[in-house]
Each structure stands twice: as structure tokens, then as C-alpha cells.
């Protein structure tokens, strides 16, 4: 049986992608239908009245479908679905479509033109209204699918555990997936740090991105997904599936074999923490076996609002986030917005290059009122809950910026200030950047993006964004060495911390805490328990000596404890 896991049988078909959320899955494929557009060569309308009857019927079926889904959704989703159904039923929209039919446009093109009439009006209004254009176009795409008689875009209804396959998943689509029914996720596009990857890991669903021709796999095809190696096997043999199951069981046994704080074999403590992005994440992570939160992303507090949230509103939210952790550590990242995710109330205008623009702490420097309100609310919530709250700033590049931030944090009564190390410049000068701070935290996703000059949203550049890239490891080492000289602790809160082999390397480089999706914690705990600190240092030296990312990963895997390497 072990042979079959090494070489998939010949009648099976192997596709190699990038594993982004660990674990294995097996099940039938459910294809997520892509957005539908009106065909350019559609025949013109000759009988506008009859055509309008069809178009209205299409809109009605879209409304009925959305209303049906609303009945099974939670409160937030329900309101969105109901409002979207109202758009489909809108008489003004039907009238506009009728006008385009009379002008001779085909049914699908008339729908598209009517939608675009309104989209243009909404875009002109800007702000919140412009954001609703997505909902409007979604209604249009669904109505066009209905008149053309093709599947509606999005995730179709299914009721047996399945593997979801898509070109890429929108964050909203990923968030609304039913965890109990989604065995695995495969996308053709996407990257190592795309939102699909992060959300899948958060939900503990095995996932592979960048899988070649994934959208061409026939619905219902049985596939095996290996979220560690990135292998997707179509029509696997029973033996191969048994092999995967065996590995899953071994893995499950290993994951329950250790518990408590992260420790190497010789007792060196490495704190294992959770990355969270909201109240629900906090409530789920709170009861789990971890030492707290290493990265609380606060953007959701701001992005959902048209005006700056008040101190009272923020205090209430932060209190709910801190409460599940008792007196454990919660590391909070202050607002990390920029031109790519603009805030209605702090929009500095479009930028050519948002990733290199006025984002993170640079935005806070322009709008210190926003930062002060956030810090005041964090201090209120800290007092209310007794949590060990530590605050850090994103996108810090210099020692002056770090000192400015640390002063503001302390002026608001908060005891601990730190900085994210995600700009290579700050990593190289960590000793001085951390001078006035209490800790540093490596954001490996952005650190890789800036070190390798590769946009993290570009799935095609995934190889460059691999945290195993020797240059990225060099920059991490420089940051750890600088922190050691300054006598300040350095942690990791990027996805790299959740890779059990990389976690060993990072520990060897001097990292004292690892923050990750909670589903990854037990595997990392198990990996640490098998190796001494000296082992980790040896593995780090191997990784740094390798000329390429692939060789670094292979060298570490080869030298790691066998009980770990058989599981990944």
C-alpha cells in the first residue's frame, strides 16, 4: 500500500499544484461555474415583447433562487441575499432591458446593457454605492445564465461531501462554504498567500492552488487531494485512497499525541499562537490548545463601515475578541489599510502601486486620529478583560517610525508595543528598529513579496513567493540576529510559521513564537517535540546553505525526524 502512495497507478491521472492547506481529502468534484457574459455573436431581437417575457422570467428565477438561499443563510448573508433579490425584481431594471430589446439587442446583451446603465450611475456616486456594483453585475451574470440556459455562476447546490473546484474563489464564496460538505478545495489560479489559501487553512480544509486545467475536470469525477504535497489525483485506485487514508489516520494520531505549550525535545519554549481576523475566529480559537493570538487583524472593524468606527464601537468589538483568551497573549496589528483596500473615511486617493504606497503605519501617520481612537479602544478592552494585550504596527520601515508608534501606544496606557517586520529594510536594521519597542513579528508573506519583488496576489509568481527562498531566509536570519542583539523577542505571524518543517528552521534561527491558522498548530507542536534546539539550528544551517528554495525544503525534509517526514 505504501508503494501506491509513492507512485499513483497508471490509469489515474496526476496533476501537480501547490499545497496551501494541509491534510488529504477524497470525493467527487463540484465545479464552481464561472461568471457568464453575454455572447458577442448573439442574434438580434425581432420580437421585443416576447423577448421581454423571457428576460423577466430570467430575472424572476434569479430572484426566486436568491430568496430560497436567503432562507437557509445566517443573518448577515440573509440581508445581502434579500437585497440582491430585490435588484433582480426591480421594475426599472426590467424596463431598461426592454428598451435595449426594442433597440434590437439580443436577450443576453439587453440584460448586460441594462445592468451596465445602472452600474455606471452607481460608480459615479462613488463610495458605498460603487461597491454595490459587484452585486448588480452578479445579478446580471445570473440572469444571462438563465436566458442562455447555462449553469448559474457560483457554487451549485450539493449535499454529499465534495471537492470544490474553481478558477479561483472569491473571499465571500470561500467564507460561505459549508465546512461539513467541503472535503477539499482545488483552484486553477490563486497563490500561496491568496485569500482562498488563508481561509482554507483557517477552516482546516485541505486545499491545492495552481492546479493545471482544474476547471476542465468533469463534475462528479472522483479526486484525491493532497494539501501537503500539492498533488491532485483523478480517478485514484482504491489502494491509493487507502494510502491517503492511512496517512490521514497516522496524522490524526500524531496530532493528538502532544499537547500544551510548544517545546522542543530538550524543553526550549516556542509559543504557539493563532492568527485571527474577527470575533468568530476568536470564539473558535479561544477554547483550543494554544497560548493565545500572535496576529489579530483588525481591518474588519473598519472595512465594513462608511464612517470611522467610534471608540465605544471598537471597545465593544475588541472586548469580544479578547474575552475568549482570558489572561493569555493577544497580539493586535493596528489598522493595515491602503489604496488596494481603501476606507471610505480615510481614502488618500488611488495610487499607482498600493503595496508600496501609503499603507499600514504610513496611513496612520497621515491620520493619527484613527490610530489614537483604535489604541484607546484597545486599552479599554484590555482593562475590561485582563488579556495580555500587545500592539504592533504594520509596514514599519525605519527606527523613527517604530519609536513614533511605540510612544503613541504607551501614551494610550498600553504596556507593550512592537512592530511587524515585513519590509526588508526593517529586517536588516532590526536591532535599531526594535530599540524603542518590546518585540518584533515577522510577516513572512509581505516580507517574501518585498524581498523577491513579486506581487503576492500574482498566482503565477508563487515560486518566487515561496518562504523557502534562500534570500527570504537570509532576511529572516538578519532580523532574528538584530533582535537578539537588541535583547528583544522575535516571532513569526506569516503563513510560514504553520509549515512544520519551516517552523523548525525558524526556531533554529532564533524565533520565539509562531502564529498560524489554528488548524496548523498541533502539527507544528508535534514537529517541535521531535527535535532539540540544536537539531533546529542544524536544520536552519542546512536550509541557508542550499542554493534554491526547492533544495532548501528537500534538505530539511531529508534531515528531519522520520516520524514527521512520513506525514508530510
Amino acid at each position, binding site marked *: 500500500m505504501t508503494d501506491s502512495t509513492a507512485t499513483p497507478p497508471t490509469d489515474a491521472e496526476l496533476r501537480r499544484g501547490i499545497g496551501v492547506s494541509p491534510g488529504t481529502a477524497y470525493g467527487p468534484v463540484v465545479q464552481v461555474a464561472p461568471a457568464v457574459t453575454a455572447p458577442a455573436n448573439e442574434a438580434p431581437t425581432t420580437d421585443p415583447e416576447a423577448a421581454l417575457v423571457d428576460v423577466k422570467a430570467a430575472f424572476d428565477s434569479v430572484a426566486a433562487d436568491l430568496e430560497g438561499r436567503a432562507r437557509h443563510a445566517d443573518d448577515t448573508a440573509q*440581508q445581502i441575499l434579500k*437585497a440582491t433579490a430585490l*435588484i433582480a425584481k*426591480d*421594475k426599472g431594471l426590467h424596463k431598461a432591458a426592454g428598451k435595449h430589446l426594442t433597440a434590437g439587442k439580443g436577450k443576453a446583451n439587453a440584460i448586460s446593457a441594462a445592468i451596465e446603465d445602472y452600474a455606471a450611475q452607481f460608480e459615479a*456616486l462613488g463610495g458605498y*454605492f460603487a461597491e454595490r456594483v459587484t452585486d448588480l453585475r452578479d445579478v446580471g451574470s445570473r440572469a444571462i445564465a438563465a436566458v442562455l440556459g447555462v449553469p448559474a455562476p457560483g457554487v451549485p447546490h450539493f449535499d454529499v461531501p465534495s471537492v470544490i473546484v474553481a478558477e479561483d474563489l472569491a473571499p465571500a464564496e470561500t467564507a460561505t462554504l459549508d465546512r461539513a460538505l467541503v472535503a477539499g478545495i482545488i483552484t486553477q489560479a490563486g497563490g500561496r498567500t491568496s485569500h482562498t489559501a488563508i481561509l482554507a487553512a483557517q477552516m482546516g480544509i485541505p486545499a491545492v492552488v495552481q492546479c493545471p486545467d482544474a476547471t476542465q475536470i468533469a463534475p462528479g469525477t472522483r479526486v484525491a487531494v493532497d494539501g501537503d504535497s500539492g498533488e491532485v489525483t483523478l480517478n485514484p485506485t482504491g489502494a491509493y485512497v487507502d494510502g491517503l487514508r492511512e496517512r490521514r489516520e497516522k496524522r490524526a494520531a500524531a496530532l493528538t499525541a502532544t499537547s500544551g505549550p510548544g517545546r522542543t525535545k530538550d524543553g526550549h519554549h516556542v509559543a504557539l499562537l493563532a492568527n485571527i481576523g474577527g470575533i468568530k475566529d476568536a470564539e473558535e480559537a479561544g477554547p483550543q490548545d494554544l497560548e493565545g493570538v500572535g496576529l489579530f487583524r483588525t481591518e474588519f472593524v473598519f472595512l465594513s463601515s462608511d464612517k470611522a468606527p467610534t471608540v465605544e464601537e471598537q471597545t465593544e468589538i475588541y472586548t469580544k475578541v479578547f474575552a475568549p483568551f482570558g489572561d493569555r497573549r493577544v497580539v493586535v496589528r493596528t489598522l493595515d489599510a491602503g489604496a488596494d483596500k481603501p476606507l471610505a473615511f480615510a481614502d488618500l486617493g488611488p495610487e499607482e502601486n498600493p503595496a508600496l504606497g501609503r499603507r499600514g503605519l504610513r496611513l496612520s501617520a497621515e491620520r493619527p486620529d484613527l490610530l489614537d481612537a483604535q489604541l484607546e479602544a484597545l486599552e479599554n478592552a484590555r482593562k475590561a478583560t485582563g488579556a495580555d494585550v500587545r500592539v504592533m504596527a504594520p509596514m514599519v520601515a525605519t527606527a523613527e517610525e517604530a519609536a513614533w508608534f511605540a510612544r503613541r501606544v504607551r501614551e494610550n496606557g498600553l504596556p507593550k508595543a512592537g512592530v511587524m517586520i515585513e519590509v526588508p529594510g526593517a529586517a536588516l536594521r532590526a536591532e535599531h528598529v526594535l530599540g524603542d519597542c518590546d518585540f518584533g513579528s515577522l510577516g513572512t508573506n509581505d516580507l517574501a513579496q518585498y524581498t523577491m519583488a513579486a506581487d503576492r496576489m500574482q498566482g503565477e509568481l508563487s515560486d518566487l513567493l515561496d518562504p523557502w527562498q534562500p534570500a527570504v531566509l537570509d532576511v529572516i536570519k538578519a532580523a532574528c540576529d538584530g533582535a537578539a542583539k537588541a535583547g528583544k523577542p522575535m516571532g513569526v505571524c506569516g503563513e510560514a510559521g504553520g509549515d512544520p518543517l519551516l517552523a523548525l528552521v525558524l526556531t533554529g534561527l532564533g524565533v520565539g513564537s509562531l502564529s498560524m491558522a489554528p488548524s496548523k498548530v498541533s502539527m507544528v507542536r508535534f514537529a517541535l517535540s521531535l527535535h532539540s534546539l540544536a537539531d533546529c539550528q542544524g536544520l536552519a544551517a542546512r536550509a541557508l546553505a542550499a542554493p534554491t528554495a526547492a533544495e532548501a525544503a528537500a534538505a530539511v525534509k531529508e534531515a528531519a525526524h522520520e516520524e514527521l517526514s512520513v506525514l508530510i
Partner: protein
Amino acid sequence: MAQRTVSIASSVGLHARPAAIFVEQASQSGLDVEIGRPGEDAVDATSILGVMALGAKHGEEVVLTAEGEGAEEVLDGLVELLSRDLDAE
């Protein structure tokens, strides 16, 4: 024809959620109800896209009109609705 003038209480104006609640109530009346800025062309109050495209902001005045039996009561109900901060609820 019944007519009322009211200022929008919703803190973020008449956008998706408040607009949806308003349109639902206007539709339930079964009457021809219109909404617009004073002195400007009015739009069909049962069209969510029309109401949203109006882009009425917090504190802005709008004129409601309705024709038919029970128009006064229908408008009273809608005025009451627009006078509440629907976003805060």
C-alpha cells in the same frame, strides 16, 4: 395626490439595507409611490435601483408622493420609517 417631505435619518443615507427596507414597505402598499429631491424628477419608490441611484445622504430632504386609496396612511408609514436610523437598528 398625497405628499410628504422628510429628511433621511439613516446615518449613512439611503443605501442598500435602509433602501431595501424602504422599497419593501413601499411595494407592500400596492400604490404608485414616488420619491425624489424637492423640485427634481422623482423615481419609482418600489425600484431599489432607482432609490439607490438617487443617492440620498443623511440629513437630506426628500419628497414622497402617492396616489390612490389609503395614500395618506401609506405615506405616514414611510415617513416614520425614513425618520428612524435604520442602520443603527
